[in-house]
């Protein structure tokens, strides 16, 4: 870490991040600006209750229920809220469907927008400069580098979540899984397949 203030000619090394976080928290509590008891619960909710297991339920349902899938693609927010998933960074959800001719992948080049209610808080690589810079410029090459080979005949559609919409990719159901139950199908769905950096 090297955060410095001012110019790099006169470096002013920063305090350790742990000290800075502790100082700001203590200051805000002392001044009565934040109430950590309530907030601890909120963050625990984000940490434990939100995550790709939610998105997987949406995908599993869409695979077994054509009517749900139709509603999901027409109005993602409403169809997803039927399963109980809603909240910050999920007020306007759009689901984009992978098909043999189209593969979708999501990115946020300006910061790190991500559909929290269905995927949880984003992984570091999603927030990193390499992913944010390259996914719009060379999606096919980057997906290949990440182990996701897309057929030349398949168009890759990149979705840069630069406004209010948060995207979820609906992956294709893997071959040979037609006999599985909804729960079994849900268990097959990975976070990366719902971002679009993997296929199932």
């Amino acid at each position, binding site marked *: 870490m090297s955060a*410095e203030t001012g110019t790099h000619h006169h470096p002013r090394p920063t305090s350790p991040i742990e000290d*800075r976080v502790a100082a*700001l*928290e203590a*200051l805000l509590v002392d001044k009565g600006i934040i109430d950590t008891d309530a907030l601890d619960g909120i963050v625990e909710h984000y940490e434990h209750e939100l995550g790709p297991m939610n998105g997987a339920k949406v995908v599993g349902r869409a695979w077994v229920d054509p009517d749900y899938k139709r509603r999901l693609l027409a109005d993602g927010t409403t169809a997803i809220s039927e399963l109980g998933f809603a909240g910050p960074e999920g007020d306007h959800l*759009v689901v984009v469907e992978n098909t043999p001719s189209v593969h979708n992948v999501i990115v946020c080049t300006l910061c790190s927008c991500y559909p929290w209610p269905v995927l949880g808080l984003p992984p570091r690589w999603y927030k990193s400069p390499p992913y944010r810079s390259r996914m719009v410029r*060379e999606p096919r090459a980057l997906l290949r580098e990440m182990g996701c080979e897309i057929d030349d005949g398949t168009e890759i559609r990149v979705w840069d979540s*630069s406004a*209010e919409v948060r995207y979820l990719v609906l992956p294709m159901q893997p071959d040979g899984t037609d006999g599985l139950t909804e729960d079994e199908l849900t268990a097959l769905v990975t976070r990366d397949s719902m971002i679009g950096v993997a296929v199932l």
Partner: protein
Amino acid sequence: MDGVHDLGGMQGFGAVVVEPGEPVFHEQWERRAAVITFGSFLAGASNGGQFRHSIERMDPSHYLDSTYYEHWLTGVATRLVEAGLITRDDLEERTGGPFPLSRPDRGMRVDDPGADVTEARFAVGDQVRVRNWHPPGHTRCPRYVRGHKGTIVRIDIVASVPDIEAHSPSSRNEPTYSVRFEAAELWGEPGDPVHVDLWDNYLEPTDER
């Protein structure tokens, strides 16, 4: 603001490094930074545009050298100091050392944001061109699409324009759109299309509608 945060299309950052089995928080301080950030929103210290812009104003090498939750911490602390709720001296005294904040806001203050726009100016299928402008303040229009032609593929909600809410005591709502850009238009060579979500005022009609 054409800052280093506007990463779309930039080159030279190397490989994407995926950490298998990554936890939600890597260190306890990340969890505490999230607590502080959510708390500061509940305390009304920032709207979305103000918070994002406080991160965009970080020193560029600090921005690139630090991870997401350090961005949050730095942005939140900057906003709280700017709002007068805490002082930098208090912060550094408690920390026992330097606490880098973001650079000053250089955006133009908007006193009269104008009337809301509730009707979509464009229809799905329309060709549009993104305006060429380079505001010193906050915007959610990435540099890599400015001046380029695209096609409206979806009309989304009417929402507060971030460029205004970041620099105004008031706000203006406008329709948002998803716009498809062909790779050849953006990068000058064949490739796959990119869709970018843009506010109404970012767009102009083209002669080719």
